[in-house]
């Protein structure tokens, strides 16, 4: 936060006198207090509380007692939990690579002199403007064995003999979740990259063209350095949110078939439903180190903006 605030502070009215700046300080604290109190109660306290709960055998209606690393030891031996780690990694890495490659590609395409650029941008936004739960329920329908469009098309074109179990076979479930998650998430990347591309000065391309640089050289030496910061910020933010996305897996497969698509948020939700709060909290907290690392880098980068 330091950087931007100092900028704003520089534009402040310059009036001297202790009493004034003191009263200004009090006013500042009073104005920020509602949000700060609210977040201390609703974010900071639950955050610490979750860590505490994960060290207890708490259940609904029973406080439970401190059991040290008991829940973590239990999770480490649980096949579902190990599947969850692998699945979350596979899902996040695949979806994020797809978003990066296609997001950048589509943004570069839309940055060409094409007609109706605004219209295309509005079109790209559609999956993003749609509520996530609606998007994933629609994809569940597309994948459905009966009434689903994909099976109808593939069978109609004689590409497959009988309907494919997109969401209920171990091989297809994860790729199906990945594709749907990509569809809903890529517009954020395209729009962010497109906005960044438009800040790269045109003169640099002109100068490069005069120097005889080809398209690939222009991309590597002008475009990429120009939008590097945005690429990093978008990747970080999106990775935090994709890792913690609940709707995609919950609405498409509920983690199935037999944990083939189980991810952290869904496993934690099942833990809460089974009323074993301590274990459920341990599932969430197990994600914390990765989240904390990503969040710290993101905070640094956003403060620099």
């Amino acid at each position: 936060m330091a950087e931007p605030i100092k900028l704003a502070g520089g534009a402040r009215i310059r009036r001297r006198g202790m009493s004034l700046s003191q009263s200004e300080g009090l006013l500042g604290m009073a104005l920020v207090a509602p949000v700060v109190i609210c977040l201390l109660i609703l974010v900071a306290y639950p955050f610490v509380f979750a860590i505490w709960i994960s060290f207890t055998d708490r259940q609904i209606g029973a406080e439970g007692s401190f059991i040290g690393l008991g829940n973590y030891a239990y999770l480490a031996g649980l096949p579902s939990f190990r599947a969850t780690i692998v699945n979350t990694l596979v899902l996040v890495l695949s979806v994020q690579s797809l978003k990066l490659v296609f997001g950048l590609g589509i943004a570069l395409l839309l940055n060409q002199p094409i007609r109706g650029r605004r219209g295309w941008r509005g079109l790209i936004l559609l999956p993003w403007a749609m509520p996530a739960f609606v998007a994933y329920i629609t994809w569940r329908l597309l994948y459905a064995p009966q009434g689903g469009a994909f099976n109808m098309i593939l069978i109609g074109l004689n590409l497959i003999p009988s309907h494919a179990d997109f969401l209920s076979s171990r091989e297809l479930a994860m790729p199906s979740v990945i594709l749907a998650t990509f569809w809903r998430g890529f517009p954020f990347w395209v729009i962010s990259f497109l906005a960044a591309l438009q800040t790269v000065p045109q003169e640099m391309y002109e100068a490069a063209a005069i120097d005889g640089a080809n398209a690939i050289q222009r991309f590597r030496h002008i475009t990429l350095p120009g939008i590097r910061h945005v690429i990093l910020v978008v990747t970080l933010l999106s990775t935090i949110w994709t890792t913690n996305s609940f709707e995609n897996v919950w609405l498409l497969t509920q983690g199935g078939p037999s944990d083939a698509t189980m991810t952290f948020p869904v496993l934690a939700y099942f833990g809460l439903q089974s009323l074993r709060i301590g274990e459920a909290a341990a599932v969430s907290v197990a994600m914390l180190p990765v989240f904390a690392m990503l969040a710290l880098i993101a905070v640094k980068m956003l403060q620099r903006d």
Partner: protein
Amino acid sequence: MLTRLTPPQKFAAYGLLVLLALFILFPIYYMLVISLKTPRDIYRLPSLLPVNPTLNNYVQLFVNQDFLTPIRNSLIVAGASTLISVFISSLAAYSLVRLKYLMRDWAGRLILFSYLTPSSLLFIPLAVIIARLQLGNTLHGLIFVYLTFAAPLSTWLLMGFFRSIPADLEEQAMVDGATRLGALFRILLPLAAPGLVAVSVFTFTGAWNELLLALIFTTSPSNWTVPVAVQYLITGDVFRWGLIMAGSVAAAIPVMTLYYLAQRFVVQGLSAGAVKA
């Protein structure tokens, strides 16, 4: 941007764009088509086209399924959490951008950190806390819990908008005898009106679309919000896809309309990396 495209390049570019449009539009098209079909037609006459279109699913949704109750609940929850969070966030954002005091950087870091914290990390302790406060299964409880993402989101966005407005006018007003708060309410907030609208749209859609917390904190059907009501449509043994898609369309239309009305700001907000995925 630099050179004009040669004809083959043009052909390739528009070809790719058409494929992209197909990829984006087909799911949405199919959602609309299925929402207009009877259950029998969906299974007996599989087709990508709207054969025998009917509004029966929508009638059923609003008459038999009482879909107006979740819509009312969602309006209350999303409306109230937006009003509360935009109000307290304007004060906080003003304070963080224009005033100087001890622990300001610390408050700013708390807000940014909260903004990045996903609710999937918080829902378990929140469930315990809400139960202890006896707010479980109430709309009040849900409004309260929604401030976890609404308040940091609106504060973070409003800070950006306030920063883009020069402080000169407020300073002038204060030289003319206005107080700090007077300058905030009479000068800055009216100038930031487009920003306030955009932030309200983001916060409202965020709350309208939220599924996980609503699933945990509203247990009886009379308190369900729209996402919860729609997700319970898919838990039966038989998938009533026509009805489910009608519910999805009804849930999506209000927020998608809002989004497109505010599109100019949406794009600004997106490029600031501002919206939660």
